[in-house]
């Protein structure tokens, strides 16, 4: 499947990072506009997280069971494969970009194999670059969330889509946002038992935003589908409910999830005394608090950013999906979390624009549809905020940074004693965000804790949490083997 495995430089008109809905669409649009395209993706096959599927060499998923928009995928995939056959698209799967550089000639990507391999990845050089790296579940720490059996909600879905099996038997899915619904529905349809879905917001929060939602009728249909699945499998959907503690059993070194404590919360996320209850015999808990776009590559290239309605740091683009950096296009979740349909539209627009040599060229297609989807996404974000009171669910011993095992108490101490107040100073003084994942998991929470409970984190703080000079771990032997630069 890989079009190259050597350490040479691949050259193209347009380089694309990510083969999810936005990246696939961008590759197809750019190639169909006549550009030579190189697409780099971390996964072994196209689809991204949304269309993750079982290894094609083992299982052919013709009917797309459990997938949304599978027809769109099959269409894009056929056009993508046709582009490869014409020699217009070079597909480089299994590679992570560890650094992106810009110079007068364009962009250079440095890559490294996602899984251990005998050689490093090639460099990719292109005049234009489209970044569509997607995002991942945003997490808030809670006591016990580092027990084995606690997963990201999206991780459970990825497990199911990628392996055709479930990571456990009895699930509690918790957090906020419409994404909890397909996760729970997928588990139930695959034979797992969803003990409860705990949603911190309230459906009443949707009402003021229905006008915007009405512009996207397919979302209403999706909602109806989930409602049917929930009814069929008798899945309790409890709003204004949160997990306050995940309980485990077993000795410290071998403990794992066995139960969950929950409580009702008010509109600010404050626990209402006397509403606590427990769910026993639970072996998997899935958490999702919206999504965090992967911003390290746009940030490293100097792209302008803003805070989106969901509190995430996202890239600023114009109507051609071009960022503040000329020649750098952004598509998908990095411009604002908005789902796969919007990502496809943005990818198509970015691909077409990036392929055109004249900057004054045609307006992007699909602008109206994109605007509708963005309005819907914004309504969803406003209806499913991160509850302001979440920090009160923590105890001083709650682990916040899973990699470096930094606790909430240590972070509070750094804030109160050492003047720390943003993700950068929290990291300097406590090591939160300095470990393997480089703050991808705890960055948002650390930024919140640095700010204190009064206000959400600033763009500056989130930006310092999302700056990762190495966008992926890279072998020191690979670095030693790099070619000296020309200058």
């Amino acid at each position, binding site marked *: 499947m890989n079009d190259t495995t050597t350490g040479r430089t691949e050259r193209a008109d347009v380089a694309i990072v990510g083969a999810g809905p936005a990246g696939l669409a961008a590759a197809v649009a750019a190639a169909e506009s006549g550009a030579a395209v190189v697409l780099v993706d971390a996964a072994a096959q196209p689809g991204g997280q949304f269309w993750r599927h079982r290894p094609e060499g083992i299982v052919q998923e013709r009917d797309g069971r459990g997938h949304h928009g599978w027809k769109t995928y099959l269409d894009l995939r056929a056009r993508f494969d046709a582009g490869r056959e014409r020699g217009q698209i070079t597909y480089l799967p299994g590679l992570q970009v560890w650094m992106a550089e810009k110079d007068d000639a364009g962009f250079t990507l440095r890559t490294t194999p996602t899984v251990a391999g005998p050689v490093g990845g090639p460099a990719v050089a292109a005049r234009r670059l489209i970044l569509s790296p997607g995002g991942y579940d945003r997490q808030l720490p809670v006591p016990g969330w580092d027990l084995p059996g*606690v997963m990201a909600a999206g991780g459970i879905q990825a497990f199911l889509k990628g*392996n055709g099996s479930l*990571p456990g038997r009895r699930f509690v899915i918790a957090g906020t946002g419409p994404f909890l619904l397909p996760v729970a529905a997928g588990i139930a349809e695959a034979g797992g038992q969803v003990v409860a879905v705990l949603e911190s917001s309230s459906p009443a929060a949707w009402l003021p935003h229905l006008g915007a939602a009405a512009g996207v009728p397919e979302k209403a249909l999706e909602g109806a589908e989930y409602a049917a699945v929930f009814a069929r499998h008798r899945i309790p959907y409890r709003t204004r409910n949160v997990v306050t503690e995940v309980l485990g059993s077993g000795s410290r070194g071998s403990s794992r999830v066995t139960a969950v404590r929950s409580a009702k919360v008010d509109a600010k996320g404050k626990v209402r005394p006397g509403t606590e209850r427990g769910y026993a015999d639970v072996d998997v808990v899935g958490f999702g608090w919206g999504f965090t776009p992967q911003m390290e590559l746009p940030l490293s290239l100097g792209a302008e950013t803003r805070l989106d309605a969901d509190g995430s740091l996202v890239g600023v683009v114009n109507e051609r999906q071009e960022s503040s950096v000329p020649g750098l296009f952004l598509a998908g979740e990095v411009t604002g979390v908005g789902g796969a349909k919007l990502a496809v539209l943005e990818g198509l627009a970015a691909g077409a624009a990036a392929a055109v040599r004249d900057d004054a060229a045609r307006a992007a297609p699909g602008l109206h549809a994109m605007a509708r989807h963005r309005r819907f996404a914004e309504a969803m974000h406003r209806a499913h905020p991160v509850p302001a009171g979440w920090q009160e669910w923590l105890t001083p011993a709650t682990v916040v940074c899973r990699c470096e095992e930094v606790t909430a108490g240590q972070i509070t101490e750094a804030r109160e004693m050492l003047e720390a107040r943003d993700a950068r100073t929290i990291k300097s003084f406590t090591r939160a965000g300095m470990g393997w994942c480089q703050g991808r998991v705890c960055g948002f929470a650390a930024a919140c804790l640095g700010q204190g409970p009064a206000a959400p984190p600033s763009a500056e703080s989130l930006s310092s949490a999302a700056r990762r000079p190495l966008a992926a771990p890279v072998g020191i032997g690979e670095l030693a083997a790099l070619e000296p630069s020309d200058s």
Partner: protein
Amino acid sequence: MSTKAQRGAGGPAAAEQPGSPQETVTISFDGRPLTAAPGQSIGSALVAQGIVAWRSTRKGARPRGLFCGIGICFDCLLTVDGATNQRACLVEVCEGMQIEGSCTPDDGSRA
């Protein structure tokens, strides 16, 4: 525990795939032979056998296994055929694969 997890792993989504090859692969985990399905991730193969943690944290010796499931969090690291710190959620099993966890923290044995 392992029977419960196996029941989950053998759910309808797996069983009903048309043309799904029936053969299995054998891998070893910490010296124990395990059976896995072709195309499965290492993480999924271990969870299917009831193994949900295979790493201990450096400071608190806390058990860790899958978390993000998509290669972001690096919680599920293990050693695959001698290559250290590989992500169990991303690496596919293959016949004869030797997998080692690190359930004692920093024992200094790795080279």
